[in-house]
């Protein structure tokens, strides 16, 4: 039997346990209810999940179909290969690209990509090495061989992938046939090369810039003119490479690139623009700048084209100078003509008066002095006429030694150089322009003086020389006068001797480089030749060859002495200047002729034709060539020659060196010529010669 306290304790525990059980049962009920709710919710979730899985499965199937379509219909070749070179899968485009009907055909045929497809199997090894190092390759270009043997260029993009069913990583990628692109690139490269060569061959300077005005390209001419080469200049601002200023203000010219970008059109540089090279050398340039536009019209940059016009400007200045000289020359020629007419009256009358005065008469010396002064005036007039000429040489048969001596002495006057002049007595005459040949001698002597600032000797030697066939000289065979001029200066270096006749070539600081060029031109116009030879330290020798007078091969012309006195016959004098007519008539009367006068050609013809019908026709006609406002001598001579083919016609002109006078015999049918002014003996001699007496 248990103790009452134990029983109480036991009952209490039982009670506590019962209460705990009750609590737990309540909790279990609550949890069961919760569990049911969870189950319902779970079932709902399951349903949703199943629907979701179904939708996802459908979506995946659609995606798979879509991607399969992409794979099958892709234009690019897509493939998966093994590292050993076996094609595991590929799309139809890949097969087509390599000339196979289907993916299976190429997969079955190709066992070793490196040797079956690659033209150069080493390319495949290179691809694998890159893949091994980097895991992927972009833009790998190689040549592949198609099934028919043709070769194509292929660009590949691929990577290594690890798949669950392969121990080794596979290669997965895409390839594109870029053969056409390659051809286009090659064509483009060829075209670029051609353009580059063209650009470098252009005679003008060309500079291209971007829109920021930075140099992107320049050609060889630009390199030479600016002193910047292409590599150095690229990226530099244009203004650093292409420094231009205004010649007159010396202020910088506005950057042409900025102007082109602002105006959007081709522009030209202002006149008087000077380019300053890197070394400080200045060039006169002419240029234009134009925008470079792409096919949409957007400006991509600017191209400048320019050329060195320094020489051209010099030439233009020379031409202007020559034109000015020519106009002054025309004026001088007119003045000389008038002077000659006046001097004809003065000189003719003086010479006649002198002949009519005894030597003992004190008036004789006075007349002789007046005659000397008149001769000096004549000489001055000749110089004016020489200056007035230009261009084509007006040749006359003359003694060249006189011209050489006068020219050399004129230049040597006041210098510290001496000269010697040798020529044979039988020196042939030549037909030459006195003024021009004088200029040649003066140029050569002046050069020699300047080459010997401390003084020296100039040796001039003339000789007759016959050019035989096979001669090394660039001259036709025949007789020539050779004129050599030798100094004992420092000489000319061998590398410069070939350039000394080039225009603007000079070794002198103040020289314009035209002297020898003009000399060369003058000799060439005389159908001659000039050459130079030099030994350094031993001076220079210039040798000129001028054709000798082929017609007569006369030696120096010597005037026949005048034999005034008892001539006879009727002479018609035609001149518009009364003073000239009267002087001429007086001289002719003194010589014994009967004289008629005419003021112009028309009157002369009438008188001549009238006299022809009489018993005493005119023995000769002296005609002035130039009759202002009337018929001149040339026209009148033609008519007279028609009327009387045997007429004796003598030309007379104040332009004593003009072309008609030089060619009066051959071209215009005159029997002789007499240049104004003239003295008694000169007129007598010319008239007697024409009359054949």
């Amino acid at each position, binding site marked *: 039997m248990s103790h009452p306290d134990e029983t109480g304790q036991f009952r209490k525990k039982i009670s*506590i346990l019962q*209460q*705990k059980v009750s*609590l*737990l049962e309540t*909790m279990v009920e609550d*949890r069961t209810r919760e569990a049911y709710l969870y189950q319902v919710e779970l079932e709902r979730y399951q349903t949703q999940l199943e629907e979701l899985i179904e939708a996802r499965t459908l979506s995946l199937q659609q995606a798979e179909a879509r991607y399969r379509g992409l794979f099958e219909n892709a234009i690019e070749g897509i493939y998966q290969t093994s590292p050993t070179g076996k094609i595991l899968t590929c799309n139809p485009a890949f097969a087509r690209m390599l000339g196979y009907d289907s993916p299976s055909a190429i997969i079955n045929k190709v066992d070793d990509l490196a040797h079956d497809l690659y033209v150069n199997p080493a390319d495949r090894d290179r691809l694998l090495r890159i893949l091994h190092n980097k895991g992927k390759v972009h833009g790998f270009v190689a040549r592949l061989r198609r099934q028919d043997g043709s070769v194509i260029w292929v660009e590949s993009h691929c990577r290594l992938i690890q798949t669950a069913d392969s121990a080794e990583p596979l290669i997965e990628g895409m390839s594109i046939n870029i053969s056409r692109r390659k051809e286009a690139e090659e064509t483009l490269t060829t075209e670029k090369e051609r353009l580059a060569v063209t650009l470098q061959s252009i005679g003008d300077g060309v500079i291209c810039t971007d829109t920021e005005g930075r140099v992107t390209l320049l050609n060889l001419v630009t390199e030479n003119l600016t002193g910047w080469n292409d590599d150095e200049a690229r990226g530099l601002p244009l203004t650093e490479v292409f420094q231009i200023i205004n010649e007159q203000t010396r202020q910088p010219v506005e950057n042409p690139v900025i102007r082109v970008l602002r105006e959007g059109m081709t522009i030209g540089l202002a006149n008087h623009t000077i380019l300053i090279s890197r070394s400080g050398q200045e060039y006169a340039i002419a240029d234009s700048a134009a925008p470079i536009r792409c096919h949409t019209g957007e400006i991509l940059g600017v191209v400048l084209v320019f050329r060195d016009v320094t020489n051209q400007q010099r030439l233009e200045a020379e031409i202007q100078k020559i034109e000015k000289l020519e106009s002054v020359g025309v004026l001088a020629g007119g003045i000389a003509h008038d002077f000659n007419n006046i001097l004809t009256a003065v000189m003719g009358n003086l010479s006649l008066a002198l002949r009519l005065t005894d030597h003992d008469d004190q008036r004789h010396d006075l007349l002789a002095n007046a005659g000397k002064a008149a001769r000096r005036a004549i000489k001055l007039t000749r110089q004016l006429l020489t200056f007035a000429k230009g261009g084509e040489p007006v040749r006359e048969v003359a003694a060249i030694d006189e011209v050489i001596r006068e020219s050399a002495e004129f230049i040597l006057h006041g210098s510290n150089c001496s000269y010697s002049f040798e020529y044979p007595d039988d020196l042939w005459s030549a037909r030459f322009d006195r003024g021009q040949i004088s200029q040649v001698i003066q140029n050569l002597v002046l050069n020699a003086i300047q080459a010997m600032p401390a003084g020296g000797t100039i040796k001039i030697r003339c000789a007759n020389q016959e050019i035989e066939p096979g001669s090394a000289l660039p001259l036709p065979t025949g007789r020539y006068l050779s004129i050599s001029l030798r100094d004992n200066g420092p000489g000319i270096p061998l590398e410069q001797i070939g350039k000394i006749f080039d225009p603007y070539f000079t070794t002198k600081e103040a020289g314009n480089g035209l002297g020898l060029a003009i000399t060369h031109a003058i000799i060439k116009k005389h159908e001659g030749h000039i050459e130079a030879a030099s030994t350094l330290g031993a001076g220079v020798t210039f040798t000129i060859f001028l054709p000798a007078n082929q017609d007569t091969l006369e030696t120096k012309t010597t005037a026949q002495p005048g034999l005034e006195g008892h001539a006879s016959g009727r002479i018609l004098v035609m001149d518009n200047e009364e003073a000239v007519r009267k002087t001429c008539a007086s001289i002719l009367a003194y010589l014994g002729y009967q004289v008629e006068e005419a003021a112009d050609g028309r009157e002369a013809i009438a008188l001549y034709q009238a006299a022809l019908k009489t018993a005493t026709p005119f023995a000769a006609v002296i005609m002035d060539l130039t009759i202002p406002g009337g018929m001149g001598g040339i026209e009148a001579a033609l008519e007279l020659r028609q009327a009387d083919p045997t007429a004796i016609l003598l030309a007379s002109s104040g332009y004593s060196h003009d072309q008609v006078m030089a060619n009066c015999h051959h071209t215009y049918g005159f029997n002789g010529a007499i240049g104004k002014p003239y003295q008694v003996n000169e007129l007598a001699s010319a008239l007697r010669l024409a009359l054949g007496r």
Partner: protein
Amino acid sequence: MKGLIFNLLEEFLVARCGETEYDLILTNCQLITAEPTLMVGPGSYPDQDFTAIIASAAKRLGLGADELLHEVGRAAIPRLVSRYPQFFSPSKHPRDFFASLNFIHHLEVKKLYKDAELPRFRCENKADGSLLISYISGRGLCHLFSGLISGVADHYQTPLSQRQLACICDGQPECLFEIRFNDNVP
């Protein structure tokens, strides 16, 4: 706090000093729960009641509260092993058990006690072989956790030494324990 913890404390105190003494301990407490003898495992009860019972028991037993909590924790492991043997695999090492603490609490305990407010644990194996365990809980029962560590060592018969490096009670963000295993198993 779940009734399970109160039950483990009750079982410890009854075993230590008998039911009468336990009743006296409860009597001397000012508890919120009206019927503390009716606490059941799945039930939830105020944290203050747990603190009050510990304080009363410590006083009665002449122990410090921290010391008592350590003993309660150490003694709890065998009881938990008998109730939930699946969490204490015989093949596991204490290191593995500690590593699975978050899993056990946050998945398995939640299944049984859905509204349990659970502490969080973080383990870090150090290069020297030691293990750092942080215990993060608003209740601040780090001494109870320390006892649990000792109980786990007893259960796996793996000698270890533990040292508390930081405590939430000192204003630290977590309670941090360093454990060194003396069985030469890494």
